[in-house]
């Protein structure tokens, strides 16, 4: 049986790992290369590397740091940030990424997911969506959560999955950095709409939040978080022990 995945996320800016509250007030944590090695060794099931300002700065993702990071990672690696073209896919895959995450790029270039899925397979294309409630409606935000696109999130996700996105990362801006648990209402709406794996992101503050996530929403495949792992507030080994106690399929290493 496939296990539920625990995914630390490295938000990288200027070559360093950062994590903000509601995407503002970033503070420096550590070297992505060192953190990546630590997570690969300590039981993370996958790693996400986001160049968080590549999109808003309208530049390409830092491939040199990515390549160095990928050399230390012996678990699946997903890379995102500033992915706008199929050439960007090619570039990060050559650096050692296993999957490529698209966000703003898919909004700007509506054929990107279709083209990439055809070339590299659906399993390689991850749709990442930053979602915020606006007047009670789930809306897609772009550029690291700074710009309201006006798109309705569930319809957008359905369209991208139909185009070939093999996995969806749902990042709730409403719960991000708040540490009071994942956005179960939002995740439930996404799980109902698509059959590809759904990754929950935004809001985890403690071990119990992951247990609640997997127990309440069995269709969610993975939980993603950043600062609580980076600062050691939640240790992956302890989290996994707790998951096993709750009979959640878990990879122990």
């Amino acid at each position, binding site marked *: *049986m*496939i*296990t539920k*995945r625990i995914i630390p996320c490295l938000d990288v800016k200027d070559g360093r790992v950062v994590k903000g509250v509601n995407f503002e007030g970033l503070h420096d944590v550590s070297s992505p290369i060192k953190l990546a090695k630590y997570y*690969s*060794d300590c*039981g993370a*099931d996958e790693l996400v590397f986001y160049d968080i300002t590549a999109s808003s700065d309208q530049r390409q993702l830092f491939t040199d740091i990515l390549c160095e990071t*990928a*050399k230390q990672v*012996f*678990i*699946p690696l997903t890379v995102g940030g500033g992915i706008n073209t199929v050439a960007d896919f090619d570039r990060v*895959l*050559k*650096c*050692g990424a*296993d999957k490529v995450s698209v966000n703003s790029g898919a909004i700007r270039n509506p054929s990107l997911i279709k083209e990439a899925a055809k070339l590299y*397979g659906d*399993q390689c294309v991850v749709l990442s969506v930053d979602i915020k409630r606006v007047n009670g409606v789930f809306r897609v935000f772009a550029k690291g959560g700074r710009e309201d696109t006006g798109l309705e999130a569930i319809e957008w996700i359905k369209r991208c999955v139909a185009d070939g996105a*093999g996995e969806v990362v749902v990042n709730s801006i409403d719960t991000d950095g708040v540490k009071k648990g994942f956005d179960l209402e939002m995740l439930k709406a996404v799980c109902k709409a698509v*059959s*590809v*794996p759904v990754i929950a992101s935004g809001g985890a503050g403690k071990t119990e939040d992951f247990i609640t996530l997997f127990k309440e929403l069995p269709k969610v*495949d993975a939980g993603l978080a950043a600062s609580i792992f980076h600062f050691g507030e939640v240790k992956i080994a302890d989290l996994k022990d707790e998951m096993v106690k709750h009979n959640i399929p878990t*990879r*122990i*290493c």
Partner: protein
Amino acid sequence: MIAIIDYGVGNLFSLSSSFKSIGANTVITGDPEIIRSADKLILPGVGAFSDAADKLRLSGLDKVIIEEAKKGKPLLGICLGMQMLFEKSFEYGEHKGLGLIPGSVVSMKGVIPSELKVPHIGWNGIIFPKDKLRSKIFKYLNQGDHMYFVHSFYATDCEDFVSSKTEYGALLTASAENGNVYGVQFHPEKSGKKGLSILKAFCEL
């Protein structure tokens, strides 16, 4: 020295860094002479079977690999590289493999319950058969250890050569071997420390 066979399919970066991390000396090569002089061979592969098999044949490396394997040189096929070790594959038509392990490669669709997604992607446990000796490449593993899988097709009609299975709605071949020829459907280079231990055990053969 271990030769990672480069025949123009997939990215060999992860494989070579994983061997480097365990201190093994590898070379990525498509040169028949280097492949002949290597101690051990790795056959990687991603994508479609027919495309990979054609590339291997066009490069002429298929004959070199078969010759070297028949001499007793340890060979490890990974993912599509594992599937290519079998006699044939039924991935979009019927295609000939290297024939180093008896058996064929078929779709898991129709074999596993329809509510399960294809491809089979993620971490899944591998189960060693109780009535067989544990494969030498799995000497550092425990029953049920998790490996990272990404595949839609799997090897069948190879029961005598199966060295582990994985449960995904049905028991699917996770690895197979025939003497010095080893194949793993999952990605040891992406399966954390446990996966690296398989590469280490292969280096120690």
